């Protein structure tokens, strides 16, 4: 959606030479670093924090004194901020920013884990599993939005995918039939979105929101009419098998997470690469970006604007529908009403936070997945930090990102604008 509407209306003060983006980021890092050092350092008990590498609590582990770690990483955060603020190492700006944020997270972890242990394998695999639907949902968004169609119906596509996967998967007794019908479920919502917004020029955001409610209603209705009375024949889908790649699966931490996993995770990761390559290196990608940025110009050189938008929105439906399959065919063994519970909107957040690019979406999805995993871990060990606040993180991070407090996110120029051939 175009963020440019007000931009040119509000009095944008001429960029002051001193407060560059780097300086503002640096100051923010210094501040949170100071908070981490003082607050986390003071609160952390001086006991060892163990990050275990193997599955059991007693195995090999990285150990650090919690209080020392909290202060050390807090200082590191502030130091990274200092480097940015002083205007040094301009070329490595993003790397230093990443380092600063990582240190802050580590400082927080040292405080929380002090006197306890954090299983790294479980945390990492949980992060990937929670991020999995977010990656697929965000990729669906990338496909649509880069060609100029806003997709806020990711939630609805998830729900339809999850529902269709469970229903057909159970009836056919095959997880692959479930996966394919999940894709079809996503496509159904995508097709309505495409026809109404491209052919009938209805506002894309409006259609998307209404479709979310439609999907919520229709899956809830059929759930109560079919699945609840007879779960055995309608709502016991077979589960996606876990496959192990011998050799690679023995690598510590990474191995069990990435190479002893279900097919969906691999599909998601491969799709990130494929869509990235497709967008930047193929004819389809160039045309998609042209249509998303300047449809009139694209049309003049003979690109079929509406056709390409239809194609991309439907492809997005396939991807989001597969993402929905995760909920019923991988995460849980059955469909329940409104089971996605806002995951589609976190995927939307990942899309925006990841700056509408596949790899950005992947990074954002992993970050949000980690926050969710951490929330469950903290509530399990009885941390004073409420899990609800960690779960707010994706939403707050996205607000900060779109408000341009830390680097403005720019949407494709023609995002959300219907194209009418003149």
């Amino acid at each position, binding site marked *: *959606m*175009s*963020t*440019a*509407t*007000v*931009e040119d*209306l*509000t*009095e944008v003060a001429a960029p002051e030479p001193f407060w560059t983006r780097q300086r503002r980021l640096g100051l923010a890092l210094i501040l949170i670093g100071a908070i981490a050092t003082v607050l986390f350092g003071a609160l952390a008990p001086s006991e060892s924090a163990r990050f275990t590498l193997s599955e059991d609590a007693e195995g090999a582990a990285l150990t650090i004194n919690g209080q020392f770690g909290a202060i050390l990483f807090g200082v590191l955060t502030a130091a990274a901020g200092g480097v940015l603020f002083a205007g040094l190492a301009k070329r490595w700006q993003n790397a230093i920013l990443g380092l600063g944020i990582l240190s802050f997270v580590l400082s927080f972890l040292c405080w929380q884990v002090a006197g306890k242990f954090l299983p790294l394998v479980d945390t990492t695999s949980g992060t990937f599993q929670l991020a999995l639907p977010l990656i697929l949902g965000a990729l669906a968004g990338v496909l649509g939005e880069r060609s100029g169609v806003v997709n*806020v119906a990711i939630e609805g596509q998830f729900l339809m995918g999850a529902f269709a996967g469970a229903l057909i998967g159970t009836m056919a007794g095959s997880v692959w039939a479930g996966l394919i019908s999940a894709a079809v479920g996503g496509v159904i919502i995508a097709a*309505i979105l495409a026809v*109404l917004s491209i052919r*009938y*020029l*209805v*506002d*894309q*955001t*409006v*259609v998307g*929101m*209404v*479709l979310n*409610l*439609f999907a*919520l*209603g*229709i899956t*809830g*209705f*059929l*759930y*109560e*009419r*079919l699945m609840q009375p*007879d779960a055995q024949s309608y709502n016991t889908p077979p589960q996606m098998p876990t496959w192990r790649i011998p050799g690679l699966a023995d690598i510590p931490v990474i191995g069990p997470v990435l190479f002893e996993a279900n097919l969906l995770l691999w599909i998601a990761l491969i799709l990130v690469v494929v869509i990235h390559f497709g967008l930047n290196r193929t004819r389809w990608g160039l045309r998609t970006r042209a249509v998303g940025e300047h449809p009139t110009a694209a049309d003049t050189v003979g690109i079929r604007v509406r056709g390409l938008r239809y194609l991309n929105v439907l492809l997005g439906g396939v991807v989001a529908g597969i993402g929905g399959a995760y909920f019923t065919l991988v995460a849980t063994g059955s469909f329940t*009403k409104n089971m996605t519970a806002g995951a589609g*909107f976190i995927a*939307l*957040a990942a899309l*925006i936070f990841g700056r509408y690019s596949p790899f950005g979406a992947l990074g954002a999805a992993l970050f949000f997945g980690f926050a969710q995993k951490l929330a469950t871990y903290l509530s399990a060990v009885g941390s004073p930090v*409420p899990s*609800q*606040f960690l*779960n*707010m993180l*994706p*939403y*707050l991070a*996205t*607000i900060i990102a*779109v*408000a*341009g*407090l830390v680097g*403005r996110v720019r*949407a494709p120029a023609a995002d*959300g*604008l219907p194209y009418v051939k003149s």
Partner: protein
Amino acid sequence: MTAEAPPKSSFARNLWAANSVTVTFLSTFLAVLIGAVLIVVSDSEVLAKFGYFTARPTDALSASWDLIATAYSDLVKGALGDPEAYSAWFAGTGTWQDALAPISETLTYAAPLVFTGLSVALAFRGGLFNIGAQGQAVLGCITAGVVGFSFGLPLVVNMLIALIAGAIGGAFWGFIPGFLKARTGAHEVITTIMLNYTASLFLSWLVLQKGIQDPDRTDAISKAVAESAQLPSFGGVLRVHLGILFALAATAGVAWLLNRSAFGFEVRAVGANPHAAKTAGISPARTYALLMAVAGALAGLGGATQVLGTAHALTPAVAGNIGFDGLLVALLGRNKPWSTFFAALLFGALRAGGNRMQSYSGISLELVTVLQALIVIFIAAPALVKAIFRLRASRNLRAGVTLAKG
């Protein structure tokens, strides 16, 4: 639908044109039709009769008809009242409370929807798509609820203070995206979506805190709102409360604000063309921030109505879906205050009827959500309805609903 002979009189000609009344009616008709199909295909007994359709088609058709007829007649009875209850009342064998209970339910469900619907509609007129009505309603629930059980103020005063608190809570939550839009250009759709979930997470944390949670309960529920802060109702089966009258007043207020006040003029000017409005000396940025605060206050009042009128205590799901339903209500009401009011009444009726349909005919209440979404989809795409029914083009048909620029 086959093409019919063109009607002669100009009244009939206009009736079959794509004007907003006809489109609304036909959209509802289409939605009900699709709903009927859903009812039939989700019933295994009736579906089994379709198995031998070619041998005895009447079996399947009459079974389908019976199913649909009972479901929809229960829907109407639950919304407007059961004719038997009315005749019992007139004959003196039943009470008037029982006869009017369905209408009371309709009004009870409609009251918060009027507020959230007005919130979305008002923002729309200024060119903003306020998806955040849900979050603003949640904030309104929180502030109204907390004020409602915290201070033991006397009757009426306590209620008014709680309502005002709800409005302020919602206004604050609405002001944030408005301010961000004005200052940084952050798109309100994205920020409000994110604020919705932030608000509900905050609520689910808050109800478990000491001083908020009901000390006698272990589950997530707050202390009950003081009786002096509750919106007065008839009691018994008649749950309808003062909120619907406030909703009526709010509709009149928004209609006045939009059509008669200087602020309303600015809102409409900015909504029509922000560049032109700026040239004319209106500050779009200021209008956006103020407009979102006012819209938020309305949604907050919706939340307050919900807590003070029906729920009487905070739970994580106290706001239900009133914000998102308000979105549909505003779209159905084409963003005009009085149309929005009646759209909210229709949605309240569907909801009240849906409850009866669920308990009497065993048809899931979710069917109502499907009907509501379908009605709005068809309303939002008048060209689609026009194509399906081959309506004549109407002179006063606009391209679609007046919508915010996405």
